[in-house]
């Protein structure tokens, strides 16, 4: 470590870094993106393997026989659902009781902050019904959950039917060591949120629910089942939960192992696994699968009913039955056997799932990228910010160049006032606070004065506040009496660059995908922006790379990856609904993406915007 103590060598290194700053930054950026793209290349990834010994070597036998009966129950459920116009509570209670479960119900109600136009709900009232299969000679300390949503329309009837069929079959078995909770939740995530909050007696989102009467101890794992057809072609595994949390990889391994054993086609992100990794199309298929996972994870949403379990440290996943036009079909008995096998193995668990990875990306179900492999991609991007900060620091501490007459320019010498740095920081954060609070606060006023619905009012207010923030430089400059100095913007940029580095670093640790997507777009902005670059071109680039536009591109990109390209107008409508969903997710389930963007990322971007228009 002579570098630090030897002033000469230190100087040499620093001068090298400052001299070659721009090329190094460009190389790092390219390397970061290339590394990321390389993650999907199969030889670079690891095969999945079962880490949990309790689930590995023990063989279980699946014997679930009653698929047809489950379908009949599902049809009966559908009829009662139609008759009741919602959750057929009494029928479910009676059916579960007749299968020998302890049955309980939970009522809940929630008024959304503004109407949800996608799901057409505003004042939500519902009932969850759950039955507990008490394990013989167990002391109610551990439980597993199997849930199926009760959705309006003709969806998921088969899931409820299979759930009840499994309950009946499981009840007559003696090998259970953990209680099994069979849950039918109404209003998908809202019902699930109410149930989980009731179970753990917490209230994070201000929902009204009646307390639960029966419990099974600490929940070890949960699966949510979505099934809307009598036969299926494949099963899709959904892992992404709230705030980008993922369940332990062993849960995915378990699903994959049983799909292999029983012979069911299984997918993740709706993409079948391909074997031709060495061909271009095979590689691009893997990239698409991984990019879909990255986009879903970055959204911070719960992509299935399982997503809310993860907050409570309960490993959970959603299994979706997909019925496409393929020839080969799987009947419901096979799915029942698959579920039975998975539950029997989960039942064998001695400890919570903890052996395998919690941070990973999956280019296919049989391969994964662990945190150690994907973090360098982000690190390469983050180092750019540190290099820029070093460069600015050196420039700021370097002695000012002497003018020709040998007199130091006094104005250059004086360090910029605290006020000139603090003002833009404070103003941009106030704008962020406005972006966070105003849309919901002012929806009624907006509805009164403009011919829009509440939802539109919220989204349009958000966009309006966002756009109004672009006028910030004028306001800042008006507040600052003397106008900024050369030193001034450098100090401000140094602060902003370090701020962004910390922000992105923390985000990437919690939700890699979100951190990486933000880094890809914000790091170039942070790196190149100065007051001396061409104003209009730079402004255009900055707006294109701003968080809002990133979201817009992500929406189109996501549709493209899902092989459902949409027109620009549809895309715009989708974009608006995504914003409203993001705000709703925050209010209803406590998703953190919206406050992160509004309160931290957007103000940070505004500081760079401010630097561009520094006078």
């Amino acid at each position, binding site marked *: *470590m*002579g570098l*630090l*103590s030897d002033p000469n060598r230190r100087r040499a290194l620093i001068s090298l870094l400052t001299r070659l700053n721009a090329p190094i930054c460009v190389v790092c950026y390219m390397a970061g993106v290339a590394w990321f793209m390389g993650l999907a290349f199969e030889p670079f990834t690891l095969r999945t393997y079962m880490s949990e010994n309790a689930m590995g070597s023990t063989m279980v036998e699946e014997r679930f026989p009653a698929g047809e009966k489950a379908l009949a129950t599902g049809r009966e459920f559908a009829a009662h659902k139609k008759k009741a116009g919602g959750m057929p509570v009494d029928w479910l209670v009676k059916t579960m009781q007749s299968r*020998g479960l*302890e049955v309980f119900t939970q009522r809940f109600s929630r008024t959304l902050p503004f109407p949800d136009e996608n799901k057409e709900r505003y004042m939500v009232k519902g009932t969850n019904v759950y039955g507990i299969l*008490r394990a*013989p*000679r*167990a*002391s*109610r*300390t*551990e439980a597993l959950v199997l849930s199926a949503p009760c959705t309006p329309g003709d969806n998921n009837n088969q899931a409820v039917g299979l759930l009840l069929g499994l309950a009946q079959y499981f*009840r*007559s*078995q*003696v090998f259970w060591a953990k209680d099994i909770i069979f849950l039918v939740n109404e209003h998908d995530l809202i019902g699930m949120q109410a149930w989980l909050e009731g179970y*753990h*007696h*917490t209230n994070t989102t201000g929902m009204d629910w009646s307390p639960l009467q029966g*419990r099974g*101890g*600490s929940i070890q794992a949960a699966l949510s089942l979505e099934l809307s057809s009598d036969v299926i072609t494949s099963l899709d595994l959904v892992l992404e939960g709230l705030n980008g949390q993922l369940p332990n990889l062993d849960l995915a391994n378990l699903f994959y192992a049983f799909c292999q054993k029983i012979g069911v086609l299984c997918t993740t992100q709706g993409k079948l696994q391909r074997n031709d990794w060495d061909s271009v199309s095979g590689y691009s298929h893997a990239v698409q699968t991984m990019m879909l996972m990255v986009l879903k994870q970055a959204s911070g949403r719960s992509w299935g009913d399982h997503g809310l379990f993860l*907050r*409570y*440290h309960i490993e959970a996943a959603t299994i979706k039955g997909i019925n496409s036009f393929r020839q080969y079909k799987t009947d419901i008995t096979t799915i029942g056997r698959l579920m039975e096998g998975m539950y029997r193995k989960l039942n064998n668990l*001695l*400890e*919570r799932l*903890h*052996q395998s990875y919690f941070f990973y990306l999956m280019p296919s179900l049989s391969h994964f990228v662990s945190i150690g492999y994907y973090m360098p991609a982000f690190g390469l991007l983050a180092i750019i910010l540190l290099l820029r900060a070093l460069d600015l620091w050196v420039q700021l501490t370097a002695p000012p160049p002497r003018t020709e007459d040998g007199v130091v320019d006094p104005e250059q010498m004086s360090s910029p006032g605290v006020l000139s740095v603090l003002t833009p920081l404070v103003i941009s954060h106030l704008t962020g606070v406005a972006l966070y609070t105003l849309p919901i606060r002012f929806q009624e006023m907006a509805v009164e004065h403009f011919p829009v619905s509440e939802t539109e009012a919220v989204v349009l207010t958000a966009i309006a506040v966002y756009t109004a923030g672009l006028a910030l430089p004028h306001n800042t400059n008006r507040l600052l009496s003397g106008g900024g100095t050369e030193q001034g913007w450098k100090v401000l940029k140094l602060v902003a660059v370090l701020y962004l580095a910390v922000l992105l670093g923390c985000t990437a640790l919690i939700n890699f995908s979100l951190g990486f997507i933000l880094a890809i777009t914000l790091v170039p902005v942070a790196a190149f922006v100065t007051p001396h670059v061409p104003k209009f071109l730079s402004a255009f680039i900055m707006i294109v790379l701003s968080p809002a536009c990133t979201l817009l591109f992500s929406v189109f990109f996501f549709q493209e990856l899902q092989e459902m390209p949409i027109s620009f107008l549809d895309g715009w409508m989708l974009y608006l609904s995504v914003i409203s969903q993001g705000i709703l997710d925050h209010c209803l389930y406590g998703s953190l993406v919206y406050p992160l963007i509004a309160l931290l990322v957007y103000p940070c971007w505004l500081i760079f915007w401010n630097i561009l228009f520094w006078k």
Partner: protein
Amino acid sequence: MAAHSCSYSALLLIICSVSVFIVADSQDTTLSGGHHAAAVEDNPQAATEAAEKTSEQPAVEERSWEATEVEEATLHEAAADKQDTPAPETEAPSPVPQPKDDFQEELVIRPLHSGDIYASFQFRTLWETDFMSGNKVSHYRLFPKSLGQVISKFSVRELHISFTQGYWRTMQWGQPFQPAPPGAELWVWFQDSVTDVDGTWKELTNVLSGIFCASLNFIDSTNTVQPSASFKPLGIGNVTDHRFLRYATLPREIVCTENLTPWKKLLPCGSKAGLTVLLKSEKLFHSSFHSQAVHIRPVCQDWQCKTTSWELRQTLNVVFDLHTSGQGKREWSLFKMFSRTLTEACPLASSSKIYIDITDDPQGELFELSPATPLLSQAMVLGDRRTFSVYDLTQPLTFGTVRSLNPLIRWKSSEGDMLRPLLHAERYVAGYGLQTGEIHTLMYNNHPYRSFPVLLLDTVPWYLRLYIHTLTVTSKGKDNKPSYIHYQPSKDRLRPHLLEMLVQLPPNSVTEVTVQFERALLKWTEYTPDPNHGFYVGSSVISSLVPSIVAMDTNITMDRPLFSSFFPCKEESSFFVRVYTEPLLVNLPTPDFSMPYNVICLTCTVVAVGYGSLYNLLTRSFQIEEPSPGLAKRLANIIRRMRGVPPL
């Protein structure tokens, strides 16, 4: 406060002892009452006896109510001569001095509303001896020697130990005859002559661990407490100083055949004859609930209670599940439950009986029982008046012509619902994350109009640091101030938290006790081999005198004389109940034990890089280096030095 606690503990002592006497003895006493009734009738014809019995039921009841005050000691006399049977060779009262020890066995079968069936065995050995008097007791007949030696060596006054696999589902099954928490429970009263109670306790647990083949040696000071009010002596004696009491539970203990075998070996007949032939592990452990216990206590020898005898009760409770063992068919027989039938009583037993609870089915429309038995018996059990069909195994007649007894209960309909248990409780951990949490204990009083006090005992291991200032007790939305609180804070790695409270439960209400806790970070050697499984917190114990179901009915419609039914009589007005909540499984912050290598590498790197460079900076002395002079100057300096003039 001290006076308060004293009076309360005294009250509770009385409550406990009285109620236990009632619960334990009511069956026998009513039997003797029944016997008297039959004697008064003086009808020797066995064939007509059944009809007589049923017609005499009201009379029997009244008799039995009068008889509930009868003291413990009279029982076994009653038991000895209670048979109105033509079998004098079994246990006829004889002029020779009574045997010094006596053994009884019985099995109670209760069909449950859920379709499950509850079988409760009790084996009672009574021995008129004194372990404490100094002279060594060496001749053992029925009483197991291993336990006798334990009693005399460790000066044990009372010993209660239970091993339970499963949780008693009060809401489905009602109250059990002998409540027990999941896992192992041990509580012992020592004689007041013991000086080093903790040391004796430690030795005793190790010895019992060997006798019962269980991990009782894991009982140490971190899970032992001295409850001040909840566990009072059940036998005679008036020492209630809780310094001589030790109580511990091991919620994690798993009970299986290795615990059953030594338990069976304590019985006089082993598993060779009598009711014990039914105790086959392959069936007992194919059930929903299994609990076995041993209770040793001193009881009075006779009415005057001048001398004491030792009573050993071995109980085994098991619940068979309708869906897994019954194949969903509502039909139970001894063979279906235990895959054995009975052919004889234990020859050493003075009494050997099977009781089948037929209270829910007085007219026989709900289920049918075959073979029918002429004997009926009524008893007050847990505050409810129950009717039992009795099979006396000491009579050859019971076994019929096929020489084997296999009572069969066949349901005719699955109608009827259970009266909700008046008291039940549940417990759970609230919150998420690994830093803090909250323990919620819910106590339900389902009585429509009576409130009653309950004693709550909570033992929480030290690694959950209770914030006792957050303790709240609420019922019906209002603060419910406990009238007595005994709290002993924990000491890290030494002793657990002990919290005892006397709470009044308002009628028809839920009382919620919450207390927050912080999860401690253990030292790395203190983690169990499976730290991610979680750590157990033992069951809370709720002890109470619950107003009885019989007394609940103030508008009595049964044909009882009016003068007898205005004031509720004391013995019946309440009964003692102990309810155990479920144990808790709590996750503690756990390091990733699979990464020591990574940690070592990281630590070494940090130390090498960080420490090395810092040390380097601190110890090095910095000097400004002279810029080296040019070649011309150096030459000039050489010349100047040769000339002897100072260099430039």
